[in-house]
C-alpha cells in the first residue's frame, strides 16, 4: 500500500513538473526585471523591436559559458534588425552562490555584454516561461500588443565547439521571422544545467 502511495505521489510530481511553461504558439507575459546596471529593464521599453531573443543563462554553467560569445554575436547581428537579446539569470543565489547579483555584474563587465542581463532570483519570469535549464532560448515575436512564443530551445547543434556547428537554430528562426515565416524547427533540446531553485 505504501508503495502504491509512493508511486502515485511520484507520478503526480512528474506530471506537475513537466506541465508548466510555454509551448510554441503561446502568448508570453511581458516582464520588467533589474539589469546589471542597476536599472529596471522592461520588454515594454523596446518600442522599435519586432520581438526578442530571450535567453535564460547564468554565470558558471559550462554549457552557458561555452555560449557566451555566441550570445554576444546574436545580439550584435539581430538587435539592429529588431530582435535584441535579453538575457535572464533564473538561478536562486542561495542555492547557487555563483549567481549572486554582484557576480552577474562582474560577468557582464568581464564579457562586455552588449545586452541586458537581468536578475530573476525568485523565478518570476523563468517559472512562467517554463525554463528548466541554462542556457535555454525563447524567441518572442510582437503581434500587436502580444508577445508570441515562436521558438523554444537551443542556440545551435554543438554546445562544445562553435566552429563545429552545422545548424544555427536561433539564427534560422529569427531569419524566418524577419521573412514573415514560421521557424522550422521551432523546438529543439540541448543539454544544460538545471535551474537552481529551492526544493519545494
Amino acid at each position, binding site marked *: 500500500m505504501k508503495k502504491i502511495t509512493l508511486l502515485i505521489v511520484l507520478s503526480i510530481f512528474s506530471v506537475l513538473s513537466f506541465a508548466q511553461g510555454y509551448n510554441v504558439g503561446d502568448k508570453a507575459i511581458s516582464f520588467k526585471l533589474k539589469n546589471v546596471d542597476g536599472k529596471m529593464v522592461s520588454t515594454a521599453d523596446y518600442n522599435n523591436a519586432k520581438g526578442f531573443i530571450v535567453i535564460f543563462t547564468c554565470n558558471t554553467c559550462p554549457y552557458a559559458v561555452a555560449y557566451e560569445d555566441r550570445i554576444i554575436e546574436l545580439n550584435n547581428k539581430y538587435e539592429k534588425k529588431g530582435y535584441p537579446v535579453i538575457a535572464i539569470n533564473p538561478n536562486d543565489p542561495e542555492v547557487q552562490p555563483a549567481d549572486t547579483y554582484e557576480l552577474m555584474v562582474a560577468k557582464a563587465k568581464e564579457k562586455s555584454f552588449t545586452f541586458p542581463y537581468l536578475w530573476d532570483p525568485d523565478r518570476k519570469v523563468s517559472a512562467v516561461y517554463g525554463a528548466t*535549464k541554462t542556457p535555454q532560448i525563447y524567441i518572442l515575436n510582437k503581434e500587436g500588443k502580444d508577445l508570441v512564443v515562436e521558438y523554444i530551445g537551443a542556440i545551435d547543434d554543438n554546445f562544445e*565547439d562553435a566552429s563545429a556547428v552545422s545548424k544555427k537554430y536561433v539564427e534560422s528562426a529569427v531569419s524566418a521571422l524577419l521573412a514573415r515565416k514560421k521557424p522550422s524547427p521551432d523546438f529543439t533540446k540541448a543539454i*544544460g544545467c538545471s535551474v537552481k531553485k529551492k526544493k519545494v
Partner: protein
Amino acid sequence: MKLIFILSIVFTLLFYSNQEQAVPIVDFKGLQPYLNKQNDTTYVINFWATRCKPCIKELPYFEQLNEKYNNKKVKVILVSLDFRKSYESQLLPFIKRKGIKSEVILLDDPDSNQWIDKVDAKWSGAIPATIVYNKNSRSFYEQSFTFNELDSVLNLKLSNP
C-alpha cells in the same frame, strides 16, 4: 641487468594495479546499448558532469547505491556530459580523486537535440537526470536525489519488475 629486469616487472605490476577504471568515450550510438539491455539486471543510469553542482552533490548517493546492491542484479552507470576537451584535465582526475567505483562513460555527442528524446521524451536536457530501468519497465527522473529517494525508486523497480 637482472635487477633492472625485476624492477621493471615490479613497476609494471604497480602501474597496472594502480590503474583507474577505463572511461570509454562514446557517441550516442555507442551509448544506446547501455540504455536498452534486456537481461535480469536493473540499471541505474545517471547523466552528470564534473562542473554540475547538484550532480556532484548526489554522486556519492549513486556510489552508495552501487555498494549497497553490490551482490544484487543492479548496475550503476554514470554517463558524463563533460566536454571532450576536459576528459584528461577534469573528468579522469575527478574520478581518481573521488575514488569512483561505479562505471563511468563519457558521452561525447554535442548534437544533443538528436538524442535527448531518445533517452526520454520527457527530458528537457537539464542535468542531473536519471533513468532506472530493467527489461520490464523504465522510469525517468529530471531531478536531484537524496540517498533515500534513490534507494526507494530502485526498490520500487526491484519489487515490481
